[in-house]
């Protein structure tokens, strides 16, 4: 609670010190001197000095304060309580904490707890006062420093911008490090896997049956790790999905961007986006209970044998799910094509359809390819639909009427339930993840090349 108050106070300080710095700069200008930067920059400069150090202290305090106080509480307990093992000591400290905030506790009438709870209350109060004083001091110090520094020759804008740049770099570093970290952890576990199963067997094997026995007294599948059949399954289902989503999504995007009235577009676009937000569990049910039986029955009527867990059903429904990825993002990039291009084309007598085909789509191509790629990766990574509507048994086929399994389904079945991090079975999930990653990587690099080559910079 105290931290929220402190944050609110700092937010107010920000506004106040900004005004102060700006006022000071304005006063200097009014005095007839030319300043290096605009008054607002001096405001930001002063606000940074006032708030940033205090914020850092607040952060550090919020991390270490509970630890320190817990330690002090434990030290204040009688010897026999201190000698308890960690588990009970923790429970006791929990009780004391609960008591001091007024929650119900187990041993509410233990004098030790009551005393410690009141001590805790006192210490927390002391800590809060200390914190408040420290923050106030830092704010004032910051204000004083900035006040003394603000002068016509101070390059406030450059300093503020440098600070913002550092912030930008820091946050993008965090983002990049986490993304790289995910890949690294995948890589690490996969290396463990390839120590157990030879690389070429995994990559070129034609048989997948990873459910080996985990316990000595259990008998599982035959334990072969050939990834080709399940990758074919993923490929098959994603291809079907893209074959549905790409034309529908693209034509929808073009229609929304070029033909429909702005009002219709404002309704249709969010409506389509709902398709992406429907929980995948729902699509799973939809595919398994509505689409799959429908396909099977119509197949039977036509004399084609369609499995009740066919790749077609899963792919169809997945295609519906990824329509908005294509339509919304393509719509954005098509809208962003400069108007001058359209007008130039119309001026030469092209119809709207011709303009779209020959001018707008090529101009928006990088974005469209990006949207298609995002949709494709979503299809490849999608799990629940295939878990429910496709099979679990690996089956090497390119026939959309048969049941296939996908990489993600296998990852889920390998990771849920019993797992053993030193068996090839569980580790193979990571190897699959990595391989999936590599495949999409290749796709992306290819797309990047294509985009680089054909991207036309207009405007």
């Amino acid at each position, binding site marked *: 609670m105290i931290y929220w108050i402190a944050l609110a106070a700092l937010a107010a300080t920000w506004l106040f010190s900004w005004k102060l710095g700006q006022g000071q700069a304005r006063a200097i200008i009014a005095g007839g001197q030319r300043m290096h930067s605009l008054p607002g920059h001096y405001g930001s400069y002063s606000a940074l000095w006032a708030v940033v150090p205090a914020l850092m202290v607040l952060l550090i305090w919020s991390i270490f304060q509970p630890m320190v106080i817990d330690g002090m509480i434990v030290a204040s307990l009688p010897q026999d309580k201190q000698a308890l093992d960690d588990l009970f000591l923790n429970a006791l400290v929990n009780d004391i904490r609960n008591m001091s905030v007024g929650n119900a506790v187990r041993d509410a009438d233990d004098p030790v707890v009551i005393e410690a709870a009141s001590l805790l209350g006192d210490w927390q109060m002391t800590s809060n006062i200390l914190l408040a004083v420290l923050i106030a001091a830092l704010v004032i110090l910051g204000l004083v420093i900035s006040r003394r520094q603000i002068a016509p020759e101070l390059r406030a804008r450059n300093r503020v911008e440098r600070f913002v740049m550092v912030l930008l770099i820091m946050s993008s570093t965090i983002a990049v490090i986490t993304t790289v970290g995910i890949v690294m952890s995948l890589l690490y576990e996969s290396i463990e896997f390839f120590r157990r199963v030879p690389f070429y067997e995994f990559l070129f094997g034609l048989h997948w049956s990873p459910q080996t026995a985990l316990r000595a007294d259990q008998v599982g599948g035959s334990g072969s790790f050939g990834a080709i059949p399940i990758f074919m399954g993923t490929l098959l289902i994603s291809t079907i999905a893209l074959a549905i989503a790409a034309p529908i999504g693209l034509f929808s995007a073009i229609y929304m961007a070029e033909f429909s009235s702005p009002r219709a577009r404002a309704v249709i676009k969010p409506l389509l986006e709902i398709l992406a937000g429907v929980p995948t569990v729902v699509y799973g049910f939809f595919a398994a209970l509505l689409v799959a039986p429908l396909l099977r029955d119509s197949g039977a009527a036509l004399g084609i044998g369609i499995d009740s867990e066919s790749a077609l059903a899963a792919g169809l429904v997945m295609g519906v799910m990824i329509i908005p990825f294509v339509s919304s993002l393509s719509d954005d990039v098509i809208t962003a094509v400069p108007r001058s291009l359209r007008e130039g084309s119309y001026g030469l007598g092209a119809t709207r359809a011709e303009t779209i085909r020959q001018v707008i789509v090529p101009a928006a191509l990088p974005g469209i390819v990006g949207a298609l790629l995002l949709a494709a990766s979503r299809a490849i990574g999608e799990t629940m639909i295939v878990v*429910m509507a496709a099979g679990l048994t690996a089956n090497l086929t390119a026939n959309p009427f048969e049941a296939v399994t996908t990489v993600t389904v296998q990852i889920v079945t390998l990771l849920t339930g*019993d797992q053993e991090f030193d068996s090839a079975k569980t580790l193979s999930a990571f190897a699959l993840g990595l391989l999936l990653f590599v495949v999409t990587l290749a796709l992306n690099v290819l797309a990047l090349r294509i985009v680089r080559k054909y991207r036309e910079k207009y405007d």
Partner: protein
Amino acid sequence: MIKKVVLAASVAMVFAGAAHARDQIQIVGSSTVFPFSTAVAEAFGQKTGFATPVVESTGSGGGMKLFCAGVGTGHPDITNASRRIKSSEVELCAKNGVADITEVKVGYDGIVIANAIEAPAYDLSLRDLYLALAKDIPTEDGKWIPNPNKTWKDVNASLPAVKIEVLGPPPTSGTRDAFVELAMEGGCKTFGWVKDLKKKDKNAYKTGCHTVREDGGYVDAGENDNLMVQKLTSNPDALAIFGFSFLDQNADKVKGATVGGVAPEFELIADGSYPVSRALFFYVKQAHIGVVPGIEEYVAEFTSEAAWGNEGYLTDKGLIPMSDAERAEWSASAKGNAKLSM
């Protein structure tokens, strides 16, 4: 700049989390025991002043793993299991300082083989089930051959000439373990020479008896039993393997096959005449009693007659109760916090 403040706040929140106390019981484990465990948890929360326990369905093995990971409020207090704890798991527990565990048996669950209500009724023997679902089957002259059976008629001339298509739980599931041990092995043992093999070459015996076919006759259908029920109604040729409670709730849509002449009915499972049923358990970490409030009261609620008795609310949820004597015995040992010994 607002962004910065917000970011700092969220980081602060992250660290504030580390010092948070826990006052509700945490339960993990089998998805089969989950419906019963949650019913007890809810009744316990309503009757007593304690916070309602948090129950997670992680599967028996996953639950054991979490349960045995250590002692302290970061680890669960109770794990449910649809099989008995394995000695390897007891060792894992001991290694991580979870020394004293109380075992409580809660009742039985029948595993049924069901199909759509309008489809023909099946009367299966364990041998039929084995011959339909095994990867390799034994011949009379002492060899294993790949399972040649394509339709039920191939298995047993009295069964319909319908393609074998059985939806069942994946190997990660406790239901699958139990089905394989009880039904498949039961059918496998009816071959005289295979039974003898058990003594001579245990591994060959297990491989032969426990391996499920992978050519499409048996379809891994995930762990969602409701989905299986619905798939059955849309595909009258298929059979499915799931827990008794789903048959009980959906008796107007699916029906259970008789196994060895015994129908999967409440009384017949309870008295042990239905061959494919298994015991359910939960395990309590004794080190947490007195640390996390309410554990003893939760166990008392679970072992009360109002819950697990013949007329208790758990039977409404599909639990098959133990006999009176067995219940008295387990309830006494649970109250006394008897230590598990293997």
